[in-house]
């Protein structure tokens, strides 16, 4: 009887030891799948052109806005999903979305700065040219 109890206990322990990593693996694969899906969805949902324009016109404030304003996942992507999936999906969606927004805003800001520098450069060159022309007439 003692032997049987010992065997039964060993069996239960073995099952727990086998079952726990399997459960952890299932949860981890659920989170990996949620993250992959979120990263795919956010590419579609976040408007890069809009954030490029915000960075272009807003400069540093545009970049700050892109960093602060987190995109939120659409409800239809969370329908029927487990709490673990929703947690992983939301985090990955916000993180990936913020990255896309910020990168687009930085690009817009750099383009805006280059355009400003080019405009100022042209104005300075034009003024120097005009001043030179005026001096040569005297």
């Amino acid at each position, binding site marked *: 009887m003692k032997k049987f109890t010992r065997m039964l206990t060993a069996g239960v322990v073995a099952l727990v030891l086998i079952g726990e990593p399997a459960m952890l693996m299932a949860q981890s694969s659920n989170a990996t799948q949620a993250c992959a*899906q979120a990263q*795919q969805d956010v590419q579609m949902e976040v408007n890069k052109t809009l954030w490029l*324009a915000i960075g272009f016109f807003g400069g540093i404030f545009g970049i700050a806005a892109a960093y602060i304003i987190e995109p939120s996942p659409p409800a239809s992507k969370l329908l029927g*999903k487990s709490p673990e999936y929703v947690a992983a999906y939301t*985090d990955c969606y916000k993180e990936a979305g913020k990255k896309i927004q910020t990168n687009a805003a930085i690009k817009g800001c750099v383009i805006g700065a280059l355009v400003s520098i080019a405009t100022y450069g042209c104005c300075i060159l034009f003024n120097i040219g005009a001043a030179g022309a005026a001096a040569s007439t005297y």
Partner: protein
Amino acid sequence: MLYILISFWIGGQFTRFYSSSISSDTVAGRFYKPQYGAMSFVIDTPLKQVITYSADTMIVYYPDRKKAFKIKSLQNIINQNRIATDLKEAIGLLRKSGYIFLRKEKKGDTIVSYWTHEKRKTTLKIVYDKKGRVFEVTVENAKGRTLYSTRVFEYIMLRDSLFFPKKITSITTQDTELFVFDSVRIILQDSLPEIIKNPVLPKSVSVTIKGFDEK
């Protein structure tokens, strides 16, 4: 005030079929939609889940597991999750999101209306009929590539000049979604489930906040 504005809701059963290169699933339950606003869901399969809204917050609640998420954003979460089921609502949403009307053409019994978004560099086409029933919405990028297409196959008449889609398919470059609605009817505010009417979570529920004021 809200009670007066949202005089009636539309509710019924729904089944959603989803498929992408990463996953595919089928979800079924009930839906509740104010005349103009985001649709709330009470899901029965594959698990018990409620998705509803309170002001600027989306609530994802699991009554069986006593867990909930409150998802907040500085972007308008309600507008993001609105499903426009008639022309007036669709046009209102387009204008709010920055689309500008270009032109419209009459094609047989339907009217095709074209819109553009200067910042997004996209054009949008809506096909609708004289009763204001939208049959197709297609978004194309500057190169003429279809980014998003929604088609409504059938309408249910709820009352004079009030229609609701029976089947909606949405196809993007990455996934396909089909909503099938059944037993659709007009519901008065008082007949709504408590969690939809008054989205306050019980104190025993563990709430996780996801959003700009995440702690």
